[in-house]
């Protein structure tokens, strides 16, 4: 299975730049997810790879081949489209066969591949139906089957699950991951759903405004977000971000003073890449599930606070308390059993464990 390389990719529409000097390498057999909000350029990058649009500058390599100037059909790719793009006047079998007709394989070969894909995706009983008579999930499978029969080394997905309901989405996530494990193709997958990214990717490229914000494994991205955008984009509910000011203390110890709640947070012991100067504006981040609730004698904490509850969200298996800190709402995961006993106005004590907080430069958004 080939690797895919983007070298200095620039794409402009007229004078409007969408991507600039983007570099990215997808290793052999990797499941790469391009994750980001609408308009971040992820679909543009995918279409550039597919050859459906032309680069303004830069090179794309698949394996050792420079494919930048090649037509889509010559790049050795297959793609699953957001709206499936099944040919409505052909049966499922016809759809699977159609893409192979240009490859000059003999009949037996084609039929064998169709049968293999149909079995793999459990669509054998549907082979004689037309797309209009299939459900959303079935169409999805046929679209994947159509891509698989081409036996290409690289497989592209353009937000394939966005048209499915939540339950089907969960099922299909597992299926696609299973396919990847079995077949081992290099996959480039575009989505705006961070759960899909976190559960399926070997590595994620988080994008915003045409720039890759961070590129790493799901764990890396989750545990050490490189900037505020990534920190807030990944994780549900989103990471709580507090504005604060750095305060230099004796012996170079640094602490942060929260704007909203006035508490002082002792930051000595935090592994800074670049320690902030006194007076620098900071953003402190903590994920809702990382608040400590076991009091001052528990895990090493950097600060304690005591805040009133605005409301609690209970969703069966988990619960989130929303606390008021000045104008800000702080989301905190709590035990569902405990959530049942709480009501608005109750005060909750929570601690900031030092090993779980993230400190960002308020101006640039970058991790410090």
């Amino acid at each position, binding site marked *: 299975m080939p690797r895919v390389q983007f070298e200095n990719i620039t794409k402009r529409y007229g004078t409007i730049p969408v991507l600039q000097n983007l570099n990215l390498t997808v290793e052999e057999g990797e499941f790469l997810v391009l994750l980001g909000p609408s308009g971040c350029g992820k679909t543009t990058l995918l279409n550039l790879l597919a050859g459906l649009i032309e680069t303004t500058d830069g090179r794309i390599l698949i394996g050792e081949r420079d494919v930048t100037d090649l037509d*889509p059909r010559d790049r050795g790719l297959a793609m699953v489209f957001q709206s499936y793009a099944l040919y409505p006047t*052909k049966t499922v079998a016809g759809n699977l066969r*159609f893409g192979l007709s*240009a490859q000059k394989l003999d009949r037996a070969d084609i039929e064998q591949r169709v049968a293999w894909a149909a079995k793999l995706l459990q669509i054998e009983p549907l082979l004689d139906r037309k797309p209009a008579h299939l459900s959303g999930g079935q169409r999805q499978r046929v679209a994947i089957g*159509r891509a698989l029969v081409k036996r290409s080394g690289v497989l592209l997905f353009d937000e394939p699950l966005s048209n499915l309901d939540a339950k089907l989405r969960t099922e299909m996530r597992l299926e696609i991951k299973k396919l990847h494990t079995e077949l081992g193709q290099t996959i480039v997958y575009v989505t705006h759903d961070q759960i899909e990214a976190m559960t399926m990717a070997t590595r994620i490229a988080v994008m915003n405004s045409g720039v890759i914000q961070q590129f790493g494994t799901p764990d890396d991205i989750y545990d050490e977000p490189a900037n505020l955008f990534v920190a807030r984009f990944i994780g549900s509910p989103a990471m709580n971000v507090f504005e604060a000011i750095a305060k230099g203390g004796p012996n170079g110890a640094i602490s942060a003073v929260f704007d909203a709640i006035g508490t002082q947070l002792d930051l000595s012991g935090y592994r800074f890449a670049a320690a902030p100067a006194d007076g620098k504006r900071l953003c402190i981040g903590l994920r809702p599930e990382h608040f400590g609730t076991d009091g001052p004698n528990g895990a090493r904490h950097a600060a304690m606070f005591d805040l009133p509850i605005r409301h609690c969200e209970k969703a069966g298996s988990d619960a989130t308390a929303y606390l008021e800190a000045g104008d800000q709402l702080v989301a905190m995961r709590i035990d569902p059993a405990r959530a049942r006993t709480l009501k608005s106005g109750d005060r909750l004590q929570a601690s900031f464990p030092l090993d779980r907080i993230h400190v960002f430069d308020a101006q640039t958004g970058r991790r410090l």
Partner: protein
Amino acid sequence: MAPQIALTPALVVTLVGFAWAIGWTIYMSFTRSRRFPDYTIDPADWYSQYERLFGNDAWTTSLRNLIVLALGSALAIVFGFILAAMVEREKFGEGVFRTIFLYPLAVSLIVTGLVWRWMFNPSLGIEAFLRGLGWTSAQFNWLAAPDTAMYGIIIASIWHGMGFYMALMLAGLKSINTEIWSAARLDGVSLWKLYTEIIIPMMKFTFLTCAILLSLGVVKAYDIVVAMTNGGPGTSTWTPAYFAINAYSTRSNIGFASAAAVIMLLITLAIFLPLALVTAWHHRQREAAGR
């Protein structure tokens, strides 16, 4: 109550202008009315006008011409589709081409017929031009010979209608999901295969609509015949519409003209009914598929 009152004029128009009028004409076709309506029907001979009709050479010519015109004008649909497909792919100057192809629609069929009459004129039309170029045996005087006159009318019809069918086809093409095109590009199938196996089947309904509209237009063909040949040479370019008008205004025979008109109505119904059925079937199909 107000809506019902507001609908009265339309009801009156429909009842009088259409229902009563059609009934009256059908009735007249069974009578021997000539210049003025004669309401007596001879029960033994109620079909006499139809007998005369189908024994009339000009009428058989008209019916034949109807089919010839329909088949020939169908080229307008073929060209319309090809043009639409090309305009849709052509990024450069799409708007300009569309404007050019559609302007003949704004031109009256009389003017259309006259313009082409001049183009076919041997002394100042295309034949003169070709001879002027040195091709001295060039023959383009189609309107002068009974065998070829109808083809001249066909060319003028295609010239007039091509843009219209192009516009309809273009609308149909644009309604095709863009991802289908992308998928086909990735599949690498040839353009020919793509159009014949995917695009044209997807546009079945548009093609059908165009065919029906074309047929209905052909049944109504009158203006263009008057302008190009006025039915000539002889009666070789008569159409049923021309026949009916002629029967009334020149021969002053209401019964005869009515019979011709009734046949025209029957032909129209024969064309229209499939459309109605297909539309109903199509709608039921879509509802069943839950789209």
